[in-house]
């Protein structure tokens, strides 16, 4: 019977995306069903024959389902004997502590209480760590109020811990709502912000903090929604990984797209950390706002989105702590083109630009095209990490980032890459100094392209889904097969560049017509002294890009100083404004962190 129920839940989850016009009630039901689907799956993974194999995640989902509180209690007592880890230990603890408030035994609660006195978790060194650490500390300090410093690993009282955590969380929210997120648009780390914000929205005792958590979750999901195409997080990312940079759907961010928007299948294991969101969501009244849902799922017309973000904290090699990041996304029904301005904006896992095309079933599909400079250096490491230089690059490869020092990698930023995007045209220029690791450009050509033709004109023509692609390498290249399929365009030249123009197949009578249109585009390329491109795009705009100089469009220099925090038909926010207007059709939601208010309006209706 249980299996039948699970099957029906899965079926419901799969069918949901097929329904184009769901009502709010239907959407809510589907969302709740998906939450239960996650919990059911996770519980089915627990080996009942070996209860000691279960961890805090298993306990959390069982508590979320109000199953076996006695078993959960005894497991918590065992697990708290050997606390280990950091903020990734803390936030599961929070989940268990809050979900188990009315279920865990007094002994289990005491075991957890003791662990938070005797074990000092590490705070970490980046913003997702701090978001989880301070959210966890905040909520535990609320759960255990009025306790003296001697009862906490930090040696600070409940009130001191609460104050410090609150101060950090408000600081981070202020930074994010004024100059943008630091770890922006991450395909995995999206979860490490969504989970703590849901915790605050669900469990914070202070109503203002509860509302802030809800508003930040709205903010982050809106930021995600505008850059997602059928569940895939498109364009530039502060951080992604070797898998998801190619197979765009296959990661934690798609779990959130599936859960909130129902527009893609769930990734394997529900993205791993997804279970903690689902467990908390089962106890929460949080639902993604209707306007955000519509932004994520409405792909009826193309739109252009500009965003401003900031770099992670720079400790060295820079005179500014958080340099601005300028993001562009051009979204259509068939494809999305997204980019930042290039440069070393984040360490190790940056992804600066790509084209992503829509596919009916994203599982196993590498639906993307881009180029990048495979680069690693102690300068990059020391800019963002407080470490000695020599061992860091190797150490990184042992810390779940195996490609970092490889020449055939497709992941990472470069100080020697400059990117400009105008609508669905991207110009990436490279000026790589001698001796740099490595002196080449890698272009990714997916195994899932349905067409790939090298043209005598110098263009490479390709098709992915319903998207026509024109790729122009600015220097000679060779093809290198990729293990698992596809080809790498390897261009071993320091003065280099890539031009890409995307278009929907529906815009042209046939493939030949697209190629002819591209061949006719006026283009002038030079590589010395610096790479330079002058191009009239398929959209009729005259773009001039020269490495090291501000791009010019139709005779006007691009003015990044006027770039807003969000600027699109759906999201609008000023730099420094602490206020985001989310709108779709007549629906409008205004998140104002100046007044800590969230207001829903129907535009055009009487006040």
């Amino acid at each position: 019977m249980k299996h039948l129920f699970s099957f029906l839940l899965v079926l419901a989850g799969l069918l949901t995306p097929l329904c184009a016009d769901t009502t709010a009630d239907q959407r809510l039901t589907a969302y709740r069903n998906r939450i239960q689907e996650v919990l059911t799956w996770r519980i089915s993974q627990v080996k009942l024959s070996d209860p000691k194999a279960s961890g805090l995640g298993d306990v959390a989902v069982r508590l979320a389902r109000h199953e076996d509180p006695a078993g959960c209690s005894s497991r918590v007592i065992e697990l708290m004997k050997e606390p280990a880890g950091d903020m990734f230990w803390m936030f599961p603890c929070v989940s268990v502590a809050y979900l188990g408030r009315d279920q865990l035994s007094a002994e289990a609660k005491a075991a957890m209480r003791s662990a938070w006195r005797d074990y000092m978790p590490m705070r970490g060194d980046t913003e997702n760590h701090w978001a989880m650490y301070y959210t966890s500390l905040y909520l535990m300090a609320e759960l255990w109020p009025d306790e003296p410093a001697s009862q906490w690993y930090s040696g600070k009282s409940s009130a001191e811990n609460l104050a410090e955590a609150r101060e950090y969380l408000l600081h981070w929210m202020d930074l994010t709502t004024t100059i943008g997120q630091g770890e922006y648009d991450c395909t995995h780390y999206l979860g490490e912000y969504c989970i703590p914000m849901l915790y605050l929205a669900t469990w914070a005792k202070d109503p203002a903090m509860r509302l802030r958590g809800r508003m930040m979750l709205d903010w982050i999901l809106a930021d995600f929604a505008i850059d997602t195409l059928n569940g895939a997080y498109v364009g530039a990312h502060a951080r992604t990984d070797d898998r998801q940079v190619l197979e765009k759907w296959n990661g934690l961010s798609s779990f959130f797209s599936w859960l909130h928007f129902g527009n893609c299948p769930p990734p394997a294991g529900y993205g791993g950390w997804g279970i903690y969101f689902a467990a908390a969501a089962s106890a929460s009244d949080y639902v993604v706002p209707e306007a955000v849902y519509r932004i994520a799922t409405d792909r009826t017309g193309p739109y252009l989105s500009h965003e401003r973000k900031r770099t992670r904290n720079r400790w060295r090699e820079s005179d500014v702590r958080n340099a601005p990041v300028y993001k562009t996304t051009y979204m259509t029904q068939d494809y999305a083109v997204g980019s930042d301005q290039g440069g070393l904006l984040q360490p190790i896992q940056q992804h600066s630009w790509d084209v992503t095309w829509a596919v009916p079933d994203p599982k196993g599909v590498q639906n993307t095209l881009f180029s990048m400079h495979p680069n690693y250096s102690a300068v990059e490491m020391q800019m963002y990490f407080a470490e000695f230089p020599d061992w860091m690059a190797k150490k990184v490869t042992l810390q779940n980032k195996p490609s970092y020092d490889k020449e055939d990698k497709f992941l990472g930023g470069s100080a020697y890459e400059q990117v400009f995007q105008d609508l669905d045209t991207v110009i990436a220029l490279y000026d790589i100094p001698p001796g740099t690791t490595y002196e080449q450009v890698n272009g990714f050509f997916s195994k899932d392209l349905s067409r790939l033709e090298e043209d005598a004109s110098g263009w490479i023509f390709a098709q992915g889904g319903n998207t026509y692609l024109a790729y122009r390498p600015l220097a000679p290249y060779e093809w290198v097969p990729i293990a698992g399929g596809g080809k790498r365009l390897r261009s071993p030249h320091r003065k280099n560049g890539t031009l890409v123009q995307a278009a929907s197949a529906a815009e042209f009578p046939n493939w030949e017509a697209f190629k002819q249109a591209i061949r006719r585009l006026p283009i002038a390329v030079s590589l010395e002294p610096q790479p330079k491109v002058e191009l009239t795009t398929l959209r009729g705009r005259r773009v001039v890009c020269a490495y090291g100089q501000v791009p010019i469009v139709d005779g006007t220099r691009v003015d990044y100083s006027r770039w807003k925090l969000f600027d699109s038909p759906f999201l609008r926010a000023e730099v420094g404004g602490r206020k985001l207007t989310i709108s779709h059709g007549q629906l409008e939601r205004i998140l104002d962190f100046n007044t800590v208010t969230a207001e829903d309006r129907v535009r055009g209706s009487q006040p």
Partner: protein
Amino acid sequence: MKCLYAILLFLAAAQSRAADLRHDLYVCVSQSKPFVIGTKVQQLNGLYRMDGRITPTHVGFNHPRIDAMAADPRDPKRIYAAGLNGVLRSLDGGGTWRIVTGWDMTEGKDIAVDPHEPENVYVGLPDGIAVSRDGGQTWVRANAGIRRAYTQTICVDRTRAGRVLAGTELGIYLSDDGAATWRRVFPTTKTVNNLRQSPHDPAVFLAATQAEGAVLSRDGGEHWETLPGTQRGQTLHNVDFDAADPQRLYLAGWGCGILASEDGGRTWSRRSETLPNADIWRMSADPDLPGRLYASPHGEPIFISDDYGRTWKARWFTAATVWDFVFVPRS
């Protein structure tokens, strides 16, 4: 029987040596295999006290990264540690701790207590220098005059009140007013990793840099000279003085192993041939035991030498990264 006799002799010698020790040795260590955030911390990391120079005793929490520690000269049980969680303070020799900095001070790299005014404590951070005037209770930023404030090392002049030196991303900075203001006395292109004051002549300071080799000052830090033969282009991690011979200096770094000078820094010879590799995280000369050196080669145990580095033997841990060896006066 022979073995038992040898063990008894060793223990007797060790006991006699331990009685002569004027300092306790603390080691800030990450037992590495590289630590990955989010994974289970398998081994005890952080601060160890090497009791009698024989037995490592873990002190305090299992913290994966403690970079430096310092003790109050008035009371060796009053300990400060700088690490990933900021500055931690113990008032009872490591039994209980308090994180005395807030969210805005992270990843302490070095810490120093002012011997003239032990309520003054200085910490080097990735975003500059902070000072406490009340024994670590409260902290304020102290970066006036410093461009690019990343600070790896802090050294308080033990003879001149208010004089503090800091090794930063772009050079050595000096303050004569207890860190209220700073001026650059030696520019570098990369980080200054370590600063030490000579135990013999307080006007002499020695520094290890990432890109400019080792540099020496003979006038209290005002002027600096590059020492010939030191490894420009190889990262030097730290420097040390021999407690008995003012002419004997040591350097350690990545790829260059351990170098010793017997002539005040004019010439250098390698003292790490018998170590497993030349990538040295940290070395130190024991102030109480003539000829005793400690070294932390990459991915290896802590090694000791009792002949000024000519021969070495593995002593503690299996794979340790030592961030600092600290000798705390026993009284």
